[in-house]
């Protein structure tokens, strides 16, 4: 099952040229671009691991593309996303975030039903990939 998180997630995966154009757009607006990765695809897993520090003072997308390539080479079987942080006063949050790398095989999620008091059912989802310990998921 294909993970859909962040911007453009219902589109086919972006090509490198498209990623570069998006990064260029972020830099034009003065947003700080950063790269993050994880192997826990749960939708509530908001804080992914940072791949290096957020990149400030960058003028051209080439520097960010090099960082994305390094992240892909280091974690070929992880999800890698690009985030753009807008530090404008009053905004001060992530403006854009999209996935640039995903595992070849995404097993999807199981729906868990937990019977609570009085036949109440609590639902939860759990990634099949998360059955294995961190770092060993997705092969």
């Amino acid at each position, binding site marked *: 099952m294909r993970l859909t998180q962040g911007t453009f997630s219902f589109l086919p995966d972006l090509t490198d040229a498209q990623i570069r154009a998006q990064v260029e757009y972020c830099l034009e607006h003065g947003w700080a671009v950063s790269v993050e990765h994880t192997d826990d695809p749960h939708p509530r897993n908001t804080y992914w691991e940072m791949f*290096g520090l957020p*990149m400030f*003072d*960058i*003028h*051209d*997308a*080439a*520097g*960010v593309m*090099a*960082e994305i390539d390094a992240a892909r080479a280091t974690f070929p079987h992880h999800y890698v996303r690009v985030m753009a942080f807008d530090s404008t006063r009053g905004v001060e949050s992530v403006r854009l975030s999209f996935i640039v790398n995903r595992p070849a095989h995404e097993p999807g999620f199981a729906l868990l039903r937990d019977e609570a008091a009085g036949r109440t059912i609590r639902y939860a989802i759990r990634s099949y990939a998360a059955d294995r310990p961190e770092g060993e998921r997705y092969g």
Partner: protein
Amino acid sequence: MTVTGSPDGGSLTLEAAITDSGFEQLLATLDAELVGLVPVKTRIREIASLLLIEKLRGQVGLSAGAPSLHMSFTGNPGTGKTTVALRMAGILHALGYVRKGHLVAATRDDLVGQFIGHTAPKTKEVLKRAMGGVLFIDEAYFLYRPENERDYGQEAIEILLQVMENQRDDLVVILAGYRDRMERFFQSNPGMSSRIAHHVDFPDYTPEELLLIAGLMLEKMQYRLSPEAEAALVEYVALRRAQPNFANARSIRNALDRARLRQASRLVTDPAGPLTRQALMTIEAEDVRASRVFRDADAGSEPGDGGAR
């Protein structure tokens, strides 16, 4: 002149391409604002022509790939290496070689870390910032310290070389430094030397050029020399050039700054009548002649530290 033989049988005019790129205008401003430096200007003209022709070749489907434009600027102190490097970013941007045209200046402490594993992230960080523009490394020979074999400078050089080779169209690296020390640096790093296509040597300025530079500087500072002061400056330049530690344009700027200082103190201690706009602007011969350079010349002795107070 027309170039024919494009795939669609059309032709391109060189004149149109030249006008489009602002080629002549660019070189004209360079000529007007930088005095002398003939070899440097020749090289810039060559590079500009190459990029222009490369653009035309691209239009008719000929491709040779992006030329390597990494440069090394060598020359004595005060010959304009840094000034030209700052200009270079704008020039290459105008010619469409670099995408953004900003300049990132770095020295050894921006690139080399203090402990193991610190250097690579630091160097990469600087390289990332310079992408799309020009990375200017002033006094590049400090990167390499042969006397200390555990120095991390070598690591920075290796990362630099890799990017210079593989990401040629993303950034241009300019190394600058004094001639003899740069030569030694290249001798111990042959890889660096061979990856730099343009070794540009900045010649010393002639006395006439130094006076022209002084004229430009005064114009920018909104001062002017009285005719006697002008004559005094000619003598000053001749004397100062013969002294040790002469730093070309930098020495001239320092001399002018000190002349301004003396002019100010002359006007304050001895106000001869009301201060007119003219008086505030004019540097008199005595302001120039009070320099130690003249005193030493009279006494026939060499100045100890070479500083021309």
